[in-house]
């Protein structure tokens, strides 16, 4: 047998192999094993890449908050880059602090709390109806009520303005205004609509999380209490609620974290009445080149986000203690609603109409109507979609004929597509290294660093990118206004999902198929090409598709980093909103919603997974 031609022949005289190897020998041996294959090298390279793409921007924006920025040297009497407490002072203690930070913070918190309360009330009832009762059409509602989550949140904001816009803002009036019922400002803009819309948008969170907890809940626990003489409400309060608490808290925390980074809705609905939340305040600071203050606000958002999600991680860990293992037969017994069956179904239907039907219908109708709220045949037109020679200042054709739309669509496809493809592949690589590398520290670091962006709301992350890449640094040219910065930021933003998908795919694959190939004589590259990639084809597709969908409907990253020449669909529609081209803006939003919705369906079909697992993307 032609074995080991390259291995050295060694003298074995006077040596006892059983003696414990010295620390240096053990270290040298481990290094040799670790460097034998590209796994470790790839791990080190990706670790460096993500340090640069994720850790460095975050550090950079935190540093911005405490260092003198351009333009302030004179006033502060220090050089650019010197340490200063000026921005902290300005954001937290100065007379303008209330405008910059405290009022937006207060608004963010109250809007979030309102949205959380409302969605909890609606969501728990719906979750219970769907998973534990004999309501009509349960299965259909189970999917239909999740739809709001698949659409961009500010779809609903635009629908709201289409209906309720009043004279405070120019452009086409809202439908109510048009028929003579002027909605008051508090209905049209600000806290009230923002809270309602966020609540409706995030109710699916509660339905999914609470519903799955309910389904795992063993009815026997309920029954035992009933047998002991507890009344229905006593069972609900004393047995079910305490056991459901982790799921409830977890959905609350998730909704809070999402509200924190939400930009589109407060931008569309808050701006006209100067109602600001932290994300819009951050946006304003960046737009007015207040880099230092922007750093403070962004760092604050990150801090709140990180703390929140750490609380969530804690809750999830505690929730494990509550997992009840029940006998299968009794687990999913349904309550009979009796005479409440019809009203309950009506409630679910109402929520569906309010959160999906009405907004989408409004948007769709608005794009084919010349004057708002006039339902006569001559008022309907397809001009806004496919018309030509319209008598407007800009955009003189229907949206589908407008080159800007196609440019934005092309940009979206290219930017989001390229970023998703890259992060999908990187995610699989990270998964491979995390599972396979013999160097534990590398595995832990990669897993954590790729998860970091999850803790940072997109808008703060975008601000961090701006802070790092707006000016040339070292060999890196200034990237602001380029496609590159968008792609890099998107990749980083998507890494938590991509790497999680990669890690779980590699965990499922296990070591065996690869080791079998190794035994058969296949080296690293051969194993990658013949074994790992073919088997993981499916996960790679999801790992690309899911980030692609969330990237397409994403707004907060782009709104900070995109310029007109790098417009994507979302920023383009926002620009149309700013110019008061209501119909066109709504049409673009409908296109985005369509892509996101059908893309999600496609992804679910391809992977046979449930949305609940991809929660949070």
């Amino acid at each position, binding site marked *: 047998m032609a074995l*080991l031609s390259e291995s050295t022949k060694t003298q074995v005289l006077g040596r006892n192999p*059983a003696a414990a190897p010295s620390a240096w020998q053990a270290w040298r041996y481990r290094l*040799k094993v670790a460097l034998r294959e590209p796994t470790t090298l790839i791990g080190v390279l990706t670790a460096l890449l993500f340090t640069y793409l994720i850790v460095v921007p975050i550090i950079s924006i935190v540093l911005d908050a405490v260092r003198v920025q351009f333009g302030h040297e004179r006033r502060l009497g220090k050089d650019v880059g010197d340490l200063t407490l000026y921005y902290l002072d300005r954001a937290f203690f100065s007379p303008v602090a209330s405008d910059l930070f405290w009022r937006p913070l207060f608004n963010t918190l109250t809007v979030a709390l309102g949205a959380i309360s409302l969605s909890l009330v609606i969501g728990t009832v719906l979750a219970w109806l769907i998973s534990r009762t004999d309501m009509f059409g349960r299965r259909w509602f189970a999917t239909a009520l999740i739809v709001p989550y698949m659409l961009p949140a500010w779809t609903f904001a635009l629908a709201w303005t289409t209906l309720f816009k009043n004279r405070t803002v120019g452009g086409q009036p809202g439908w109510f205004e048009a028929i003579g019922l002027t909605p008051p400002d508090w209905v049209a803009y600000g806290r009230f609509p923002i809270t309602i819309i966020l609540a409706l948008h995030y109710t699916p969170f509660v339905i999914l999380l609470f519903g799955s907890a309910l389904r795992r809940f063993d009815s026997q626990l309920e029954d035992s209490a009933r047998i002991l003489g507890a009344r229905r409400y006593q069972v609900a309060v004393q047995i079910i609620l305490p056991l459901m608490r982790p799921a409830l808290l977890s959905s609350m925390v998730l909704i809070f974290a999402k509200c924190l980074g939400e930009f589109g809705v407060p931008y569309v609905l808050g701006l006209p009445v100067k109602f600001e939340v932290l994300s819009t305040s951050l946006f304003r600071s960046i737009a007015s080149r207040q880099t230092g203050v922007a750093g403070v606000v962004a760092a604050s958002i990150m801090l709140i986000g990180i703390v929140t999600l750490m609380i969530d991680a804690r809750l999830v860990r505690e929730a494990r203690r509550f997992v009840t293992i029940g006998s299968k037969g009794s687990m999913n017994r349904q309550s009979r609603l009796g005479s409440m069956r019809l009203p309950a179904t009506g409630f679910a239907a109402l929520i569906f109409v309010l959160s999906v039907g009405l907004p989408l219908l409004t948007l769709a109708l608005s794009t084919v109507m010349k004057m708002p709220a006039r339902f006569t045949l001559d008022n309907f037109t397809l001009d806004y979609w496919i018309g030509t020679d319209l008598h407007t200042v800009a955009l003189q054709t229907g949206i589908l004929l407008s080159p800007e739309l196609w440019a934005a669509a092309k940009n979206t496809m290219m930017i989001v597509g390229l970023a998703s493809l890259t992060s999908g592949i990187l995610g699989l690589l990270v998964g491979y290294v995390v599972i396979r590398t013999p160097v534990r520290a590398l595995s832990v670091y990669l897993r954590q660093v790729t998860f970091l962006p999850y803790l940072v709301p997109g808008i703060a992350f975008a601000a961090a990118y701006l802070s790092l890449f707006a000016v040339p640094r070292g060999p890196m040219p200034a990237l602001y206004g380029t496609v590159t910065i968008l792609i890099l930021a998107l990749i980083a933003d998507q890494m938590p999902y991509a790497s999680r998908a990669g890690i779980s795919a590699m965990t499922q694959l296990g070591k065996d198929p690869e080791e*079998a190939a190794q*035994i058969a*004589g296949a080296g690293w590259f051969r194993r990658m090409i013949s074994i790992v990639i073919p*088997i993981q084809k499916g996960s790679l597709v999801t790992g690309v598709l899911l980030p692609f969908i969330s990237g397409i409907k994403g707004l907060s990253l782009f709104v900070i980093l995109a310029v007109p020449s790098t417009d994507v669909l979302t920023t383009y529609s926002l620009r149309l909103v700013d110019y008061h081209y209501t119909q066109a803006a709504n049409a673009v939003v409908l296109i985005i919603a369509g892509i996101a919705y059908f893309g999600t369906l496609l992804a679910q079909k391809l992977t046979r997974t449930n949305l609940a697992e991809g929660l949070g993307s």
Partner: protein
Amino acid sequence: MPTINLRGAQKNYGVNSANAVSDLDLEIRDGEFMCLLGPSGCGKTTTLRMIAGLENLSGGEIRVGDRVIDSVAEGIFVPPEKREMGLVFQSYALWPHLTIERNTDFGLRLRKLPKAEREARVESVMQALDIAKYRDRYPSQLSGGQQQRVALARMLAVNPGVLLLDEPLSNLDARLRLEMRAELKRLHKEFKTTIVFVTHDQWEAMTLATTIAVMNEGTLQQMGTPNDIYDRPANRFVAEFVGSPPINILSFGKPGVSDIADKAEAYFEACYPKLRGIGSIGMRPEAMGYATKLEDVPQGSFFSEMTVTGVLPTGGSWILELRSENHTLFLTTHALPRVDNGERVFFHVPPEALHVFDAEGQRIVEADTLLRSNTYN
């Protein structure tokens, strides 16, 4: 394949965990059919994986002939793909995306053999293992036993110098298992392949192996021929692990705990006063006989009167459960027992069938000659 030598091989999976394998010396000679035998978790799979190179060492070295292929002290590590060994996994590890034929073909393609030769070899192993009719199926479309045969075929196709098998028969039904055992034995004879075979089934080990290595908690307990292991277990662990029903152990030095043990102690003091330091003795159920009358008990043997409390047929033989005041023994007989529950009988064991262990549980080798030399009748 030259002799494979493990010297002081050690494996520790975590910083704070116990050694999965410690200080293992193992010699696998060319053409040998070696069984690694031991209870679950004793480090059999780990040992196999270290030999294959899938697990790196924490200490010690592995040599093939006089070449070091793995050594911590010398910093040598030959990767698995260059060791040219065959390994059949406990879980088969078939490639789910390749057909049975491509699975079998994989290694040969890597070796860049001419197409005609490749096809001939794949054909012959697929025929030999009776999987040719599934050639175009995917692994998920085969039963567990069929998958196992594909896993074997995949390794046999490349004709490796040594074939490492990790419990390859565990998922087969009794009949198929017997067939596969015969098949393995035939392959071993025909190809003269060195085989290392992991099992925790002692009968499998007994019937297949030319050498058995018994392991426990990561250390080698005994290495020897099946007869050695069975007839002269090196320590109590081996004695108790091999044999079914298990060997009857009588512990010395604890008067009053067991009346039978006390009798045995008295027996040794009377007949073999020179033997000192006995910790326990063992009697294999198969080596024991019984008599209903005292005069039928052979002279010189160790015996005692006990009550029959169970007669358990095991197909062709019977196990008698015997009880005294505070001891229970098992005895195997191949003749239909003519005793009933509640009857009093005398069990008896000839001295040469007694296994004598010291206080640490190691076999007292001098006792063997002593017990054997003492002829009676």
